[in-house]
């Protein structure tokens, strides 16, 4: 499961929708095993489009869960004509968002406390009957 996906996933329990704590999920840094796949192509224009969809505050929180405290407090912005510096930042974002993934680990809803597992890079968001 790619780091970017953590920015899209909330707790699926319906009653948690009324809470502000169902997103992002809380990642257990000790149990999450990360890998980097450098074969994933870098496509700056494509990444720029995707950045529009990102909730930056949640990126910072999850990065911290996973031991990365070096992210800037606000979402990086870019000039229309990408400068060399812009490209360096975009490449770093590419490495974090698309090349880094959680192969195995746990994530928890901060509202209901339910735990979801990631196995073989695939998150499992199924619910037991009392939460469904």
């Amino acid at each position: 499961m790619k780091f970017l996906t953590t920015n899209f996933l909330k707790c699926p329990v319906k009653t948690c929708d009324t809470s502000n704590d169902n997103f992002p999920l809380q990642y257990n840094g000790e149990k999450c095993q990360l890998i980097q796949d450098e074969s994933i192509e870098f496509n700056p224009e494509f990444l720029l489009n995707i950045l529009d969809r990102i909730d930056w505050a949640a990126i910072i929180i999850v990065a911290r869960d996973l031991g990365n405290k070096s992210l800037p407090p606000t979402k990086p912005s870019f000039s229309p004509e990408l400068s060399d510096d812009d490209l360096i930042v975009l490449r770093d974002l590419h490495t974090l968002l698309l090349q880094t993934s959680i192969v195995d680990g746990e994530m928890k809803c901060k509202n209901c406390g339910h735990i979801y597992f990631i196995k073989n890079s695939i998150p499992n968001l199924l619910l037991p009957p009392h939460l469904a």
Partner: protein
Amino acid sequence: MSASQIGKKQYLVYLAQVHINFRRAELESLADICGLNDLDFSNYKEDSPFFIVELDNDTQAKEWIKRSILSRAIYEYWGEGKDLTELHQSIKFGTNIEHYKDLYKNDSFKFEFESYRGSNKKVNRISQIETFSYLAFKGKINMKSPDQVYTLIEVFEPVSDNEPSTTPSHMYFGRRVQISDRSSADVFDLKKRPYKGTTSFEAELSLISANIAQVKPGSIMYDPFAGTGSFLCAGGHYGALVIGSDIDGRMIRGKGAQHDISSNFKYYGDTDKFLDVMTMDFTHNSLRNSLGIDTILCDPPYGIRESIKVLGAKDPERFVGKENVEIDGQKAYLLRDYIPTKKPISLDLLLDSLLQFASERLPINGRLAFWMPTANDENIETLVPLHKNLELKYNCVQSFNKWSRRLLVYINRGKDYNGPTNSGLQRSTADFRERYFKNFN
């Protein structure tokens, strides 16, 4: 005379004579993506692969046809006739011919030949090309990378079903502007795909579906019934970031690192387009509400291989208090290997929730496209699900012997649309699965 002075020009679209029920929908949807809103379809005929249309310029023609699967190519139209003599007359008296001759006179070029429903084996192509000498091209002939390609399309009328004609009955001539994306149907052919399954959707119609659904570069596409990821591959090919989910983890897991959905994206060179697939019940969705989903494209389960299921207990009484069960001091439902129970749901209800989800998540004018099967022998009209915020734009039928399936395409028009709805009604007369196995009798 500059191009802007000649106004609109005629173009010839050479279409594939297959999947006719999807062809115009694809042409219209792609035209809409590139802002061609006033395209005149009055020359379009279902029984003909030739469609002459007016456009402003080559850029429009290229943008329109470059990702089409049901077109072969688009040409700047120079003329047509029942034989070479008539063709040459048509070219010589064409409105723009002097302009075209002047514009391309110094470009390198080559001639190519296409034929429809037959082939002209005996003809000497060199002497045929020489009959075009009045065009007075001064550029070099370049077979590998010419500036311009001129195409002669010969049309044959077969003598009978099994006797092809060897003399063309009609011909078109034009300058090639853009080849379509039709060759991708072959590139994405399931035979060559590293990971596939019994439910994988055929390549050609997956790509056509993505075109009619208007999957756009840099957008987000979601398939809530991803299975082996056929539509994800098609969406990634057209440049969207694709997300898939499925309640059945077995399909999306695949069979090891070389045989899973992500290995297909490696194979097609689209690794950056694939986000993730997740094990999830689409009716208990985990995609955050604020995430914009531009397109939803899917083939929902129709319960042919197994019944349709969502999360929850079929018999709730049996599960009363089960949340308190502990194993080795830990809640059982919080264990890593816990498998939640599932309950059956009717197809009508599942599709109702799909339409509802689309109405909540798609942007205005965003599209939901999905496949739905029906039996052919029912004498009653198939009831297609409708939602008050969604306009049913296309209902494209693919017929088989005893059943058919249709691609339903909806556009989100928002709260003020107030279209007809049949949500909550039982629309299907009988269980499709049961009838499928009883051979529809």
